[in-house]
């Protein structure tokens, strides 16, 4: 026989157990009660539960009692005595009592096969969607070029400001630092051969042709692709995009194209800016480290560095801009109506955008070099 202040008291006779519930049964006292009750062994075949000394009983406790009773119901004759004020509570909760459902998921034997299937189908659907999206953009691109009025000039300028003008500082700083690093490392090597003056070609060509476009595009991919995805994703969640569709405002025309145009225009300009800053940084290193004056540096650049290197960099920028803006928008439209998906698709858009920029750059590099440019 045991006695607890909040808990229960047991009286055992030959063929029946009397269980007196005592004191307060609630969420706080329940864990101890459960532990003590589970250590009791019931050998008799009928169980009387007495509620007369129970002061309070909250919903968790009554649910526990019901589950306790259900467990013993099969083998025991159970009677509930002196329920009093708890009767209604007991009845209400037994009506709604729901045990944990058995796990109905069948064992999957061909799990890996199923996984491959699911991935294949989703890859196929994703490809179709991307094609559809690109098609839509191209279609509305032509529509808006032929009917000039439908270009959202104001929105476009707004996007140019937020994604290009506001990025000038960060692009300036990174270009300056990269320019210094490349020139500095180069100057150490060139000095060994006494080929100091070649620092001009080295810095200018690598910057114009490869580094400045790539770096600018990566900064913009991190900065702008993410913001496009988050903007459009938030609009998707607040049903603004659905509202636009019902009003006959084509989202591609109103949201995607202004962003694509904004980057087509601004990315080449940003690359030009990056060219200026990084080559200037290179000339500073050349002056300090190799004693090449600024006049010498720029005169030689004018003589030996061909214009095509510069133009190739700018030209690549147009494609990077299209890719970044389209990826940002495409991922934005994929956002579903829950809070985690904005984060998911924003991450995806940045990763995709950076990857595509690097891949495009590699393709351009091979094609242009092979064709002798």
């Amino acid at each position, binding site marked *: 026989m045991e006695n607890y202040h909040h808990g229960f008291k047991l009286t055992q006779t030959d063929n029946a157990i009397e269980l007196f519930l005592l004191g307060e049964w609630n*969420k706080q006292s*329940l864990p101890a009660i459960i532990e003590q009750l589970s250590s009791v062994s019931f050998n008799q075949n009928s169980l009387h539960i007495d509620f007369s000394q129970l002061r309070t009983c*909250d919903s*968790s406790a009554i649910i*526990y009692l019901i589950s306790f009773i259900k467990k013993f119901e099969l083998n025991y004759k159970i009677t509930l005595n002196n329920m009093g004020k708890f009767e209604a509570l007991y009845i209400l*909760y037994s009506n709604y009592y729901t*045990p944990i459902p058995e796990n109905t998921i069948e064992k999957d034997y061909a799990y890996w096969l199923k996984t491959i299937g699911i991935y294949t189908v989703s890859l196929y659907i994703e490809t179709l969607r991307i094609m559809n999206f690109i098609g839509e953009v191209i279609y509305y691109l032509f529509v808006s070029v032929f009917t000039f009025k439908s270009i959202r000039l104001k929105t476009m300028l707004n996007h140019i400001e937020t994604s290009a003008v506001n990025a000038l500082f960060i692009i300036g700083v990174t270009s300056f630092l990269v320019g210094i690093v490349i020139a500095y490392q180069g100057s150490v090597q060139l000095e060994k051969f006494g080929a100091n003056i070649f620092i001009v070609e080295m810095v200018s060509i690598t910057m114009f042709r490869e580094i400045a476009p790539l770096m600018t595009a990566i900064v913009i991919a991190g900065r702008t692709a993410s913001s496009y995805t988050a903007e459009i994703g938030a609009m998707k969640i607040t049903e603004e995009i659905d509202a636009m569709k019902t009003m006959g405002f084509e989202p591609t025309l109103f949201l995607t194209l202004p962003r694509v145009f904004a980057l087509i225009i601004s990315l080449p300009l940003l690359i030009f800016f990056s060219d200026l800053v990084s080559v200037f940084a290179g000339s500073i290193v050349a002056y300090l480290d190799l004693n090449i004056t600024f006049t010498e540096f720029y005169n030689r650049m004018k003589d030996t560095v061909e214009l095509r290197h510069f133009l190739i960099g700018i030209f690549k920028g147009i494609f990077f801009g299209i890719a970044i803006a389209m990826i940002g928008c495409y991922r934005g439209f994929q956002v579903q109506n829950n*809070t985690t998906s904005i984060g998911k698709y924003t991450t995806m858009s940045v990763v995709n955008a950076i990857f595509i920029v690097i891949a495009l750059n590699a393709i351009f590099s091979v094609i242009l070099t092979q064709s002798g440019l």
Partner: protein
Amino acid sequence: MEIVEVNNLSTTFGNNIIHDKLSFNVEENEIFGILGGSGSGKTTLIRQMVILQEVQQGTIHVLNQNVSTLTLKQSQVFKANVAYLFQFGALYSFLNVIDNISVMLKEYTHLPDDLIQTIAYTNLTMVGLPLSCAKLYPSQLSGGMKKRVALARALAMQPKILFLDEPTSGLDPSSTQSFNELIVQLQKLLNLTVIIVTHDLNTIKNVLTRFILLDKSIAFNGNYQEALNSEVPFIKNFFKHKD
């Protein structure tokens, strides 16, 4: 016993006066309604009661404690005693339905896991949802279902005070009916005090023991029958179309 005591509460947003010296009490075991037109500060008022919004002037006492001066520890205890049903459910989108219902029990009690699950499933059945939606995520539920899950979540902890912000908006009439019946039944059996912000006539008529009507100050304080008999033009106008 007074569960909530509001004294000379004034709230302004910019130049816009929302509450002008409100004073009223909510008694224990009441189902108390807060009514008023759009923008009359109903939600603001109950948000202030659960310390989601700051009290600007006047005092609010909930469970005999001034809500503006609670220490961190006191507010933890306070929060275990109140539950708030948000207008659109505010379910955690990263948890499934059952985990949403059992999250408070998991964090604040030492109950065994299978009992917590059973409590969650029982509450799910209680608010009238099928077992098939137990493993769904909030984004896969309809607006009405979200609300029911939110109610189940609020009930699972068995609070002393239950705050409901427009619990029946967006529910179909028969669901509203059963929702109302459930609230009345639970209030009686679990000794809850329920504070409801509502527009629903069915709720006003059949559920509320008393309500206040906000119009900057308190335009009316009493029950439905008294409101119908009132001669004040604003109150007559408010209930004009509701018969």
